[in-house]
């Protein structure tokens, strides 16, 4: 298969890679750019572990072709902290023990950040429905919901 050259922006920095036409954005991020924070839990859009944003829109990177990244702005978990300052969601997840094995955590954080950008004061139910596509098998979600709400409150300055 003839490879394609893709120029894109990842976490604000220019990035280039070559990929096969059928390659997913997830595979390109992980294998071409070395950004292994997004995980493949299913490869079919059912678990959310590969969540990233493309042009500000939350997506499963396993359901995006790498070739579609041409000219796009991609944001991944690796770009969530600002230098040595963790994002309030990242801190809240540690403080509230909202992770156990942690493999779903990058995807959940990316998804939760996207929720709070759209809705800074969600109800628990809104958080639960927004995150329904992010499977977590360890926590039963309880502490995740609490952590998101705590970060939301902090970000509102409450």
């Amino acid at each position, binding site marked *: 298969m003839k490879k394609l050259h893709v120029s894109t922006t990842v976490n604000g920095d220019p990035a280039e890679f070559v990929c096969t036409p059928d390659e997913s954005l997830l595979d390109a991020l992980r294998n071409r750019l070395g950004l292994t924070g997004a995980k493949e839990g299913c490869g079919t859009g059912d678990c959310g572990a590969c969540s990233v944003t493309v042009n500000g829109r939350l997506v499963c990177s396993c359901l995006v072709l790498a070739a579609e990244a041409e000219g796009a702005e991609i944001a991944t978990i690796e770009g969530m902290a600002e230098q040595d300052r963790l994002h309030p969601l990242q801190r809240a997840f540690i403080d509230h023990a909202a992770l156990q*094995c942690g493999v779903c955590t990058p995807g959940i954080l990316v998804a939760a950040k996207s929720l709070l950008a759209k809705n800074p004061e969600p109800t628990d139910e809104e958080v639960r429905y927004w995150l329904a596509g992010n499977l977590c098998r360890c926590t039963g979600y309880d502490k995740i919901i609490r952590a998101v709400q705590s970060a939301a409150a902090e970000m509102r300055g409450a």
Partner: protein
Amino acid sequence: MAFDEYQKREFKQVGTRPNRPDGVDKVTGRAMYGADMTLPGMLIGRILRSPHAHAKIKSIDASAALALKGVKAVVTGDDFARPEDDFLRDVQENCMARGKALYDGHAVAAVAAIDAATAKAALKLIKVEYEILPHVTDVDAAMKAGAPIVQEGRTLENVPAGMSGNVTSHSEFGHGDPAAGFAKADKVVERSFKTAATHQGYIEPHAAVASVTTDGKADLWCCTQGHFFVRTLCAGMMGMEASQLRVTPSEIGGGFGGKTTVFIEPVALMLSRKAGRPVKVVMTRDEVFRATGPTVSTSIDVKIGMTKDGRITAGEAYLRYSGGAFPCGTIDMGGQAAFAAYDLEHVRTYGWNVLTNRPKEAAYRAPGAPQAIYAVESVVDELCLALKLDPLDVRLKNAAKKGTKSSYGPTFPDIGLVATLEAAKKHPHYTAPLAEGQARGLSCGFWFNFGGNTCVSLNVNTDGTVGITEGNPDIGGSRASVSLMAAEELGIPYEQIRTIVADTNSLGYNDVTDGSRVTFAVGLATIKAARDAVRKMCLRAAKIWDIDEEAVEWKDGAAVPAGPNAGRFPPMTLAEIAADSFATGGPIAGHHEVNVDGAGVSFGVHLVDVEVDRDTGATKVLRYTIFQDAGKAVHPDYVEGQMQGGAVQGIGWALNEEYIYGRDGRLQNAGFLDYRIPVASDLPPIETVILEIPNPGHPYGVRGVGETPIVPPLAAISNAVSRAIGTRMCELPMSPPRILKAIGTTA
């Protein structure tokens, strides 16, 4: 000396909730999981799997695959020597079939190629000639005369004559005379149940990177619950010496028992050996469902007798478990656990393990217990309803306690069942009003808990900080708990300790992270290793002060003279002793190696409220509360996390999760779309109440907590649903079509 007696003490750090040491790595995407590892020159391995449930493999022709540009090696079952040991042979044949494919998804060949696309293309070029054989996937069908025999000659000596050749083992537990007990009952209920096989559903698929060199050495990185066991298994299959195979565990993205064995690791090693290059093998989600280790599927009959005032007079259970295409001992755990919550004069369980054309079972949180206890707790609930008795009162009346001869033989020491039941009874949840269409269910749960082989090394750094090396992959925050226990024992701040999980060359053998053993056993070894280091530090202080070693004791992180006669010296802190260590005899370290026994059993009680939509059969879980004895909660956040996570897995099992096989013997739902694990919006908050009834077998009173919480949800929810619809549900999962059928809405 196998275990330490518990001694009551005031804790300074144990019981607090500091941040976990691996937290930042995990929230920033830096933590390295199985599939995140890359080596120079690495090839990608893929596995070809049987599309048939049961078939003779007549031939495998890989010539076309090998001829494809970029393909470096092909492996089949013939590449492995046939192990003499039955257990090892079963594990090997489960990793790569020999002669027969025993289930849909059974590995038959593997390739290593320069990239994933080439490997995928190569799989299509491997020609396998199959002779399809009749198959059986249902446990009851497999026990019938004339059922297709999955494997010949696997029946143990304990199986009564005349049973199907698929029955591999039989066990019987209990005491007394159930017939006499039933005769004394006012009401006897007998019911048959079925439970579907479920999967652990860890989000991280299995992944391994193997690098075998021509001098016979090998390195293996993989996500596993027990890298020492991986080494034992792989070295055995590869004909290697343990010393030459170093296994390093990655961060593990969930296991729950499913990563206590090997599936792809020996395949990656063999591919690497043949190709002469490192090879990475990562399972797809489809492969995880089809070819790793789900739970047993079961068929169970339970009979229980009760007097009008709620005393159980006898209990009996017949348990038929299928652990798939290979023999499995889970039935023994089910038989022993079934009636563990009850103090019974007459109790008996009979169990059979049965072969079916399904993947080989692996452990899943309290293996064997949830199914058996579900059946028992359902019948107890039905008796409570029939006799108009309060289900908590009945359980309190019959609860196992200290001095009870357990249903599996031993007399219980201090246990926490009565305390958890009493906590449930006084909790506001138990008396909260219910609306029309809603109902409340409850169930007890139990798990044995294990100890096992454990090694811990503790190094005192010259700046007064401490590094701990342990050998059990951290699946739920155990590095935090281990650091906490060391901090407690040493008297230094938690933040000054870093605990890592080391490879197989860095420590002696550590058992798999299983049986809820880590906080208990690794914790115990850590405390002992810390005490070893403390003894050495006291000795250094004694030398510096020029007094007897016995005249020095350890207090609040410092050596102090033991009494006024020892001399008057100011406390010498760990940091001070460490700073001078080069001059006082060299680096200071403590270590401890032990096969730990004395794990205390753990009981839990779950309360759940549900609402059933009578027109669609949908069940909504409205409220959920867990009461569990943790012995001592070292890091309460992660104890709660274990309880919540286990309960939600049980909720999934009760309502939606199941392996669905078609008539063709193929798995119909090998993905997260149709294998429905609970999502966030399915659930209410999961409230937790931790009780602390100290385990006499641990210095801090710790009991394992990880497994018990998956046990009660099955019956708790089934009891609630049965009460809500007015009909006893006897099959799991209680999917909406089954509920509508039970109500009678659909024929």
